[in-house]
């Protein structure tokens, strides 16, 4: 699939509120996060030392890296705490009935 094109990655039944789920889109690991503000998709790898964020924890709107405790805002991928400084990529999400559709950003 190409950048910008939506594809189905999971069903809403797999992602209750407060949960996160790692899916693969075009060979890339993407983390889906269901927060009080809705469903968001970000890269699964921490921008600091490439730990897999799916092994961390979603708290509120933050995903916490299991390795050094860096936090990212899952709504836009912004790095919220050191040691991470660079953001992680954030991807477009739309819901089609019970399907979660993701289009890769860059």
């Amino acid at each position: 699939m190409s950048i910008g094109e939506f594809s189905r990655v999971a069903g809403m039944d797999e992602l209750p509120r407060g949960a996160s789920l790692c899916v693969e889109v075009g060979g890339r690991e993407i983390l889906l996060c269901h927060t009080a503000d809705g469903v968001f998709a970000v890269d699964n790898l921490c921008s600091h030392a490439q730990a897999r964020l799916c092994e961390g924890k979603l708290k509120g709107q933050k995903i916490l890296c299991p390795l050094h405790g860096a936090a990212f805002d899952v709504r836009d991928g912004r790095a919220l705490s050191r040691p991470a400084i660079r953001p992680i990529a954030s991807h477009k999400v739309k819901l089609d009935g019970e399907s979660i559709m993701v289009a890769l950003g860059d």
Partner: protein
Amino acid sequence: MTKENSQPGEARASGASVADTLATDSRGAPPPLLQQQYQFLGDSDIPCSRYTSQAFADLETERLWGRCWQWACREEHIPDVGDNYVYNIGPYSVIVVRSAQDGIRAFVNSCTHRGTRLLGAEGVGFSPRITCPFHGWSWSVEGRLESLPARWDFPHVGDDSHDLQAVKCETWGGFVFINLDPDALPLAEYLDVMPQHFQHYPLERRRVRLHVQKILPANWKAAQEAFMEAYHNFETHDAPNGANAQYDIFGSYVSRFIHNIGNYSAESLADYPGNKWRDPPLTENQLLQSLSVFGLEQEEVPAGETARSVAAEDLRRLIGKALGVDLSSVSDTLMLDSIEYHLFPNMFFFPGITVPMAYRFRPNGDDIDSSIFDLMVLEPLPEGAEHPEPPEPFKLSVEQSYTEVEALSWLAPVYDEDTGNLDLQQQGLKASRKPGITLGNYQEARIRRVHLTLDEFLKE
């Protein structure tokens, strides 16, 4: 005008005391709220330099913040093994971690290799292993050194010589307390009467509904002292009640005020300026109207009842329904009043239902002229319910108003008033030619108690 007495500290405002009010309430109060324990602690001035001097603040850093018990977070901030909470106090930083389902540990937030702070930001985190971002040394949640890359280069590092540096950690009332002094006395001793009193209003069965963290433009002591007396109510809040509040001193670490809501005595304002609320005094109906901010349904006080009894009954029903808790037997005073326990040096706990807060005031890094004020609203939790994940704090700068936090509702303008004097006070303390501040013997005794205990800590 007032109940005069020759002994300093024995005079009181005229009118019904808190004990008088509690005795005529519609439902009896738990025994600790009927207790009165005031002590005269002296009347000399408190030096302004305690609020403005860098040398004094440095001494506090070393001998107060490095030695006293202080709450770092709530237990529900770290429900699962691997959850952690970073708490910063002045230059110090502590990691509180859930090390086992029933175990909480605390460590100095510093690598035992070259000192790097291990976890960056204050607040909640999750690390099943704590790993230093510099060279990758890592520790278990029990603080054991588990991985040391290039072990061959460190023959001088023993098997347990470089574990994380443990910090004393205990819990009470759903709060996790830490103490950086390895020789600190046990928390239970420090809490004095609190565990016994709070059996009647357990804080572990509360949830964090709201957490607001604001920077205040005053030294941490000046900031907290704005919340230790109700004497300011008349001028700061334009409110009639406050002069009859009760103040108690329980030992060196704990003090309390009980400030009745929904009543007042016109006589208590005898020597206040003007005739406001004195001539004519407010009627019971007017008093009830002043409580409309609580969202009461009743608009009139039936004959033979009081604004307090009507409001308390309304709130039992309304709050009980909203929270799913049975408040039918809760006393009027717990339903309505501002009941505030202070735990040395900087913590406040309110057992009330309508006024249900916890506060913490601490220095803002190394700036003596500003402080961080954490305010939590702690709602009763229904029986059997588990603690939900606490909300992230709203962070407000010095310039921002509490009214930006919609969930604070009627409390927002009150906090704006309380904190609105602080910049003026901090600047005035610096400008004063008079070397010290003067305190009222009764209404401001809690402030003096804190300074006396602080002196004990600051001794060599």
